């Protein structure tokens, strides 16, 4: 496969319609995909951030 293969086109998705003119708004709770994301989130170990012991790099 050529790395410039035109078959590797990006997939552009339409953004969610505007609801207000300025500033972040409260999320639309009916958004598709929300439930599956929350399902992933509930499986996350609540203490894992305390186990993430990193060194300073560059």
């Amino acid at each position, binding site marked *: *496969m050529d*790395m*410039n293969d035109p078959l590797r086109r990006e997939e552009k998705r339409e953004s969610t319609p505007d609801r207000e003119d300025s500033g972040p708004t409260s999320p639309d709770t009916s958004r598709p995909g929300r439930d*599956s994301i929350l399902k992933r989130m509930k499986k996350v170990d609540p203490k894992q951030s305390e186990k993430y012991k990193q060194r300073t790099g560059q």
Partner: protein
Amino acid sequence: MRKRIYGIETEYGLLVRGSDFRYDPVEIANRIKNHVFSKGLGVLDLHYRANDEPPGNGGFLANGGRLYLDMGHLEYASPECSNLVDLVTFDRAGDQLVQEAVEELGWAENVSIIKNNVDLETNATFGCHENYLVSRSFPFDERDNLKLLSAFLVTRQIFCGAGRIGACNPHPFRDWDGVSMEDEEEAKVDFQISQRADHIPNEFYRWVQYNRAIVNTRDEPLSDPSKYRRIHLLVGDSNMSEFATALKMGTTALVLELMEQGKAKRDWILAESVGAMRSISRDQEFKWEITMRDGNRTTALELQQDILETAKSHLAGFNPETDWILENWASVLEDLPKGPEAVLGRVDWASKYWMLGEFKREENLDWHDSWLKSQDLEYHNLNKASGLYWGLEESGDAFRKTSDAAIEFSKTNAPRGTRADGRGELIKALMGTHAGYLIDWIGFRLSKNEEPFLMLDPFISYKSEIRDYLKSMDLYPNPRNQTDLPPAKDETASKRK
């Protein structure tokens, strides 16, 4: 508009679950690296590269990139790429090489590769470095030009920041002692849009670990120094979104082009960059107000729009990639004020902010609850089965810039159009042989020959020359790989136009 070469270096974080896991993080990183090379995906260094890089510390990959250990972190440097699609593809290929190693070692339940830039508990930070090749005549020595670049980098975080909970009020890791820095009160920050903003105390500096700067001024071209300069930036966050990676690198390349053409406006210079970087990142109302050198007040969004309009005026129509950058830069700036959902999958901080907000409400949590911080980390987990970013891909909300097939191909094949192609050829020929070698970005030397083979022009593939060179030493074709090699054809190097 000139041709560019792009590269990304990523330092990965490593999360070990379970206190009784048999290896410590440094040993885990070492074993992941060794596993990748033991699969025949590259060749380990046989020589010292530096005092802290002994033989075997890392090596070059068949895809032309490099995997190594650096300051306790597993690090992947992409090969030199001539376009944004290749860049995103090879960045992703590196992610997958290390994630697959974790899975093949049977550690997926215990070890997570986290592609972020900060430890929320200790405030340790580690980088994502961007590389852009420019001509030696690039006006890098003039102070105002550096300030122009700084103004762009400080404000681009509104669309390429990866976001984080909390702040580093830099006491625990005060690695910039002695550096001028405003004393500020312990700010209570729930969420900020950049991971690195709190860790950049200088506007200009040449070093990369201490006293990090918005514009790194180190002059290390890794190519012919009479022709080229490498702009090496360490101010950015690692992005999970392919779109964000492409837009971050693409817009920066356009601004470098404006600077090189003398079209960048002095009006863009900020009154003070380091403070602005932090105040934009920490602004809880997302107004992103800034003060310009002339005293005028504006916002990061308006400044970016002005830079975009200038880029459109001078660079539109140059090629499809330039137009992609201009079109999508405009769309993101237009959509950012509409709220995080409007840029879901395109802007990492907004995607994370939306997820965390939903979860916070669902579980009635405080912003600083450790469960929410754990979700912040999980956004960057490269494990597709659990990492939160991958949930966006699963639901179709992630904006792809490449494809899974291209990423798979790019784990073992180098990009075309740069010297990485020739390097990939070399690596494949050396795998499984007993030849001695010394390889670096700018060339290599084999034990059978005292003379180094130099690859000083990153725009030249050197592929046919390297094949001829290897043939003269009975190292090509590599009998072990003969069935994998395409027939030799005229790979005349494409010189820079």
